[in-house]
């Protein structure tokens, strides 16, 4: 009896009868992964025209990326904004999650809902609204202004991740620590935080990526000397397709992947 005729699950349906499902699932996964991955080899193509697989390999697009002051400036801006966003969103979001989780008050749920709303409001509205307000506050085209707006977008992620970690954490440990002489703050720093640090780190990484990848608000709020990588890329895509973008894209994929992989590995080693 080949593998095809064996049952695949509790309903005893065979693999053969499910072949169509496997085919579609594989197709969907390819659909999802192909665009993400195709950019990487393209960035190493020596040719200016699109060809796959590349006939000749070259690093010229990376060279062009690094040599361009415009792109480099934009990259630096994006990294700075992302770092600021990570710091601000993680601190504010973690404090809020902890405070709301521990207080157990009725309106804590309401406040939690409010902190989650940035996910559901159409970004374009936030973008033009913030643009309007920043013009008045002279925060337009500043790193701080953009980082604040991106932090607002990242706070729901931080709140979700940290609240989930707090739920599976044994709060009794904090109580014991307090009974043994630690003030609330010391108990949090010495006992609770070390045990939710994986979640806090994940939240920081997600906030960093939110700031790094954000497009719409950056289009309206960053500019001049403080244009972000995303803004410049967006404008470049509307015009001519410069293969340098392939190199930039690969770098961005590398940044995201490395950060997320590091978080996963860090989490796994902690669990042993």
């Amino acid at each position, binding site marked *: 009896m080949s593998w095809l005729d064996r049952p695949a699950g509790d309903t005893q349906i065979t693999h053969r009868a499910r072949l169509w499902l496997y085919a579609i699932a594989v197709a969907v996964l390819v659909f999802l992964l192909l665009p993400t991955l195709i950019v990487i080899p393209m960035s190493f193509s020596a040719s200016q025209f699109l060809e796959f697989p590349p006939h000749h390999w070259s690093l010229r697009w990376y060279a062009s990326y690094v040599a361009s002051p415009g792109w480099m400036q934009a990259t630096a801006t994006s990294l700075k904004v992302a770092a600021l966003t990570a710091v601000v969103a993680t601190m504010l979001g973690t404090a809020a999650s902890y405070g709301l989780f521990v207080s157990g008050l009725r309106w804590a749920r309401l406040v939690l809902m409010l902190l989650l709303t940035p996910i559901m409001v159409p970004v374009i509205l936030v973008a033009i609204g913030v643009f309007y307000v920043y013009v008045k506050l002279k925060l337009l085209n500043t790193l701080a202004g953009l980082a604040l707006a991106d932090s607002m977008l990242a706070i729901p992620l931080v709140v979700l991740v940290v609240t989930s970690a707090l739920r599976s954490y*044994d709060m009794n440990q904090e109580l014991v620590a*307090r009974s*043994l002489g630690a003030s609330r703050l010391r108990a949090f720093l010495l006992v609770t935080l070390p045990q939710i640090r994986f979640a806090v780190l994940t939240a920081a990484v997600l906030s960093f990526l939110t700031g790094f990848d954000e497009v719409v608000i950056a289009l309206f709020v960053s500019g001049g000397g403080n244009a972000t990588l995303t803004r410049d890329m967006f404008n470049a895509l509307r015009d001519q397709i410069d293969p340098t973008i392939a190199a930039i894209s690969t770098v961005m994929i590398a940044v995201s992947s490395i950060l997320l992989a590091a978080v996963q590995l860090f989490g796994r080693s902690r669990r042993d």
Partner: protein
Amino acid sequence: MAPDRSLPITVRQVTKAYGALRALDQVDLAVRSGEFLTLLGPSGSGKTTLLMVLAGFVRPDHGSIRFGDVEVVRAPPHRRDVGMVFQNYALFPHMSVAGNIAFPLRMRHVAKAAMEAKVAQALETVQLAAFGTRRVSELSGGQRQRVALARAIVFEPRILLMDEPLSALDKQLRDRMQIELRNLHDRLGMTTVCVTHDQREALTMSDRVAVIDRGRIRQLDAPRTIYERPANRFVAEFVGESAFLPVEQSGGEIRFAGQVLKLADHPGSGGPWLLMVRPERLRIVTDTATDATNLLRGHVLALVYQGESLLLHVELADGTRVPVRGSSARGAMASVPQQGEAVTLSLAPEDTFLLPNETSAP
């Protein structure tokens, strides 16, 4: 018990309400310096709430709590200087055993050398001398409980609070730890308040037991008194297993099923009364025994072998069901009537106890 190793606890008018539910209702309690007091009650009775109020984790609506002469009801938990053991131990998994135990000493800025000495001594006291470097995940349940204890006593607190400390252990370990805990208390001398729902535990370990129901203390007495002279039906039912027989009072006499009962003391006025009958105090007698008093007649509904004892379910002539507990030793078993047979039970006068019949309906 040196007086400076322990403090008395005075609880006055402590009330805690959650909406319409009164978890604690004007509770008054005086715990003597150095005594081992158990708060005993069913779940939801408020016993854990009271312990949490003593520790400072639950803020009462009003009330006074004094440790010795000092009012502490408004003091935060980290300033109350009490040791506490939680039901699930709550050890810090990211610290070693020694790290856990040293934690309260760190909070008190004890010098490193003195800290190491005290930690070693605490480990010795709970018989875990070589375990300092182990990680919490490597310990068994019983070992974790002892580390939790060591952590709670290493800074020599004068009050120790324990929330169902033995409930997570299996039966063998639990019986052994009951004795060990009591020994620890006797050696160290601090005032100990322990919460449990297990009445055997309460009776074994305590100097006094406070039985709590729905936020009120129903009786506060030594274990023997609680068991043999319960103050009301709740305590009588919660501690030990009993049957309650309604009796009639006419003139100066108490009757059950027409028969006049010989009692240890007469109740005088008051009533109606219930006769509390403990299963192990009933004797099975033959009808012709002349020295047997207070005879109850019925037949055996069921016979249950329970290892160390035998439990008979007997139905009396008027339909009341009474449990009877006897030895399962072979000699004793020979004379036990079988299922369906008639049986006569006798209760000695000194084993009789009358309770006020608080409700007319059961």
